[in-house]
């Protein structure tokens, strides 16, 4: 049983970090502010990943598919219906003739993300481990393929532009906070707690009647909703979108954020999202030849991927629980460990001999 204070901190700590980033963003220059906004949107995406991966223990390579769906649906629907038919002549009429406000597009993005995740999830939640990784990767590929070529619902391979840029620092901060709050509420809900319990030992959980597939589906759909929402925030931040921007590279980077921070906790997701995003931003600046504070290096293109890839590989191999140890912030635990040696904890049943 965790104390109420610790429980509150589980939300407050990540929320505080998000707010601090937002506040810092108001103190910097215009262009840097955009980067801070980008960091906050990334944090929202990573939280969405965490809601499923962290709680279920199942690695999914497909969540960015829902970000893509959110981004494209929000993008297409917020382009003014005066210019839409000219810009995207192949669209289905009901898409071409209507448009919604940015806020409404976020709701739409979340709804579609949840819907597609739900449909995919019905099939996939039975799978574990490697099979789940491959199957979710397949979902990413399918969504990418469809978005890239089906010009009745979107721009296809062309870039989608002229999207209202309504995600500023304030909106991104709110969006990230919202995702954090939902994630927090979920992991303390009955479904979330049952899912986390089954994460450690699926057969044991099943044997006491926990319907793992159902709870995974809940987490997967919720993750899809948040991912869709984050996709909407993303597209309104950049003002344009292409399928390649929400495909393998984003999958890799956001997974790296989650892994580096700590797969199993909300704090880990937010810390990892912040750290790796800022690292990404500043490395990209160095690649472009800009100065970063006192640093005047001119890094070759691709250095960012190299550094982040190396860091991610190192963490997975050397410290798989991530920088935060996959734990939430807990002063209670810290204090207890200072006072006396922690008793041995039997995390998992010992392996069967031979």
């Amino acid at each position, binding site marked *: 049983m965790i104390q109420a204070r610790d429980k509150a901190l589980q939300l407050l700590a990540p929320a505080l970090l998000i707010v601090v980033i937002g506040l810092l963003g108001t103190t910097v220059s215009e262009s840097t502010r955009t980067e801070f906004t980008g960091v906050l949107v990334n944090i929202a995406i990573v939280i969405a990943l965490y809601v499923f991966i962290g709680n279920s223990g199942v690695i999914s390579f497909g969540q960015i598919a829902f970000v893509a769906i959110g981004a494209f649906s929000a993008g297409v629907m917020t382009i003014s219906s005066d210019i839409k038919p000219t810009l995207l002549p192949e669209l289905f009429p009901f898409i071409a003739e209507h448009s919604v406000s940015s806020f409404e597009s976020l709701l739409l993005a979340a709804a579609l993300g949840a819907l597609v995740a739900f449909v995919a999830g019905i099939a996939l939640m039975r799978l574990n*481990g*490697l099979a789940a990784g*491959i*199957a979710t990767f397949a979902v990413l590929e399918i969504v990418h393929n469809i978005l*890239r070529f089906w010009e009745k619902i979107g721009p296809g391979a062309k870039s989608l532009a002229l999207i209202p840029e309504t995600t500023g620092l304030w909106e991104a901060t709110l969006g990230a906070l919202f995702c954090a709050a939902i994630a927090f509420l979920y992991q303390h809900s009955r479904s979330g707690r049952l899912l986390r319990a089954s994460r450690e030992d699926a057969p044991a959980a099943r044997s006491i009647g926990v319907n793992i597939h159902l709870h995974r589906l809940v987490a997967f759909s919720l993750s899809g909703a948040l991912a869709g929402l984050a996709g909407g925030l993303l597209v309104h931040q950049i003002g344009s979108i292409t399928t390649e921007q929400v495909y393998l590279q984003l999958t890799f980077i956001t997974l790296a954020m989650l*892994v580096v921070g700590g797969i199993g906790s909300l704090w880990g997701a937010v810390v990892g999202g912040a750290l790796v995003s800022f690292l990404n931003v500043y490395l990209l600046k160095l690649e472009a030849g800009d100065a970063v504070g006192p640093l005047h290096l001119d890094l070759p293109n691709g250095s960012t*991927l190299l550094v982040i*890839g190396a860091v991610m590989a190192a963490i997975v191999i050397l410290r798989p629980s991530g920088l935060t140890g996959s734990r939430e912030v807990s002063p209670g635990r810290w204090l207890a460990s200072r006072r006396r040696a922690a008793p041995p904890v039997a995390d998992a049943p010992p392996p069967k001999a031979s």
Partner: protein
Amino acid sequence: MNWLQTLVDAIGLGSVYALVAIGLALIFGVMRLVNFAHGELITAAGYTLVVAHALPVPFAIALAVIVAVVLAWLMERVAFRRLRDAQPATTLVATFAVAFALEAVWLIAFGARGESADLLSNLNKPAIQSGDVTIRWVTIAMLGVGGLLLGGTTLLLNRTRIGLQMRAAAADFRAARLLGVRADRVISVAFVISGVLAAAVAVLLTAQQPLVTPTFGLEITILALVGIVVGGMDRLTTATMGGFAIGFLNSLFGNVLPDDLRVYLPSAVFLVVIIVLLVRPVGIFAPRGSGAAERL
């Protein structure tokens, strides 16, 4: 459109994919590691051919083999050795990261546009021409080299001591170690062989299409991975058949389908993957009654 031509080309491509599949399956067999980074071995060999284009062809090929083998050995020693007892899903994430890091290295060293490795473009000339059907030297090379390496690997596994040890380790790693089989040696050999196979794939692919880009090896590896999952990851034979099938079908449908449908080929392929994983996770080529795929 000539069916025979399409068939021959498809068999050729299938052989190349089969080689990738063997490389992946060998490592999965002994280590339960899904090596997403295998494609980077192919890319490394490809870039070696680019850099060595002034050398006589046999030297360039030999160099490519050496580079791929060394990189494979390094990968195992530096990054993957610690993953031996990890869950397969964790290894997928780790190899994914290594793959991206290496891809970044190619990007830094050679740029995104791609370089040409045209030493073997002579092979793209027709060898046999009969009416509508043109069989290029490349296709013959694909079949020949593919068959040779497949045969060689089979011989190695079935007739040599180290091959026996590898088969035992793949079946039951701990029991093999209890008999004195050296884990490190068996795994290193698997990586070395996968390096050789990767180099062969690079040579064959560049003969047909000389442009080497940073994602050169990744694309074929992803599809080959799909193939071995669909065919059956647990055994070398079913994995290889799965790889061959995917290369074969990819080429076949690529040539046969009308344009507007062809673009959705990846979706169809990946949908098949999902279905197979749900319905027959041991793989479609696995014999009836195969045990549940606890591996997955």
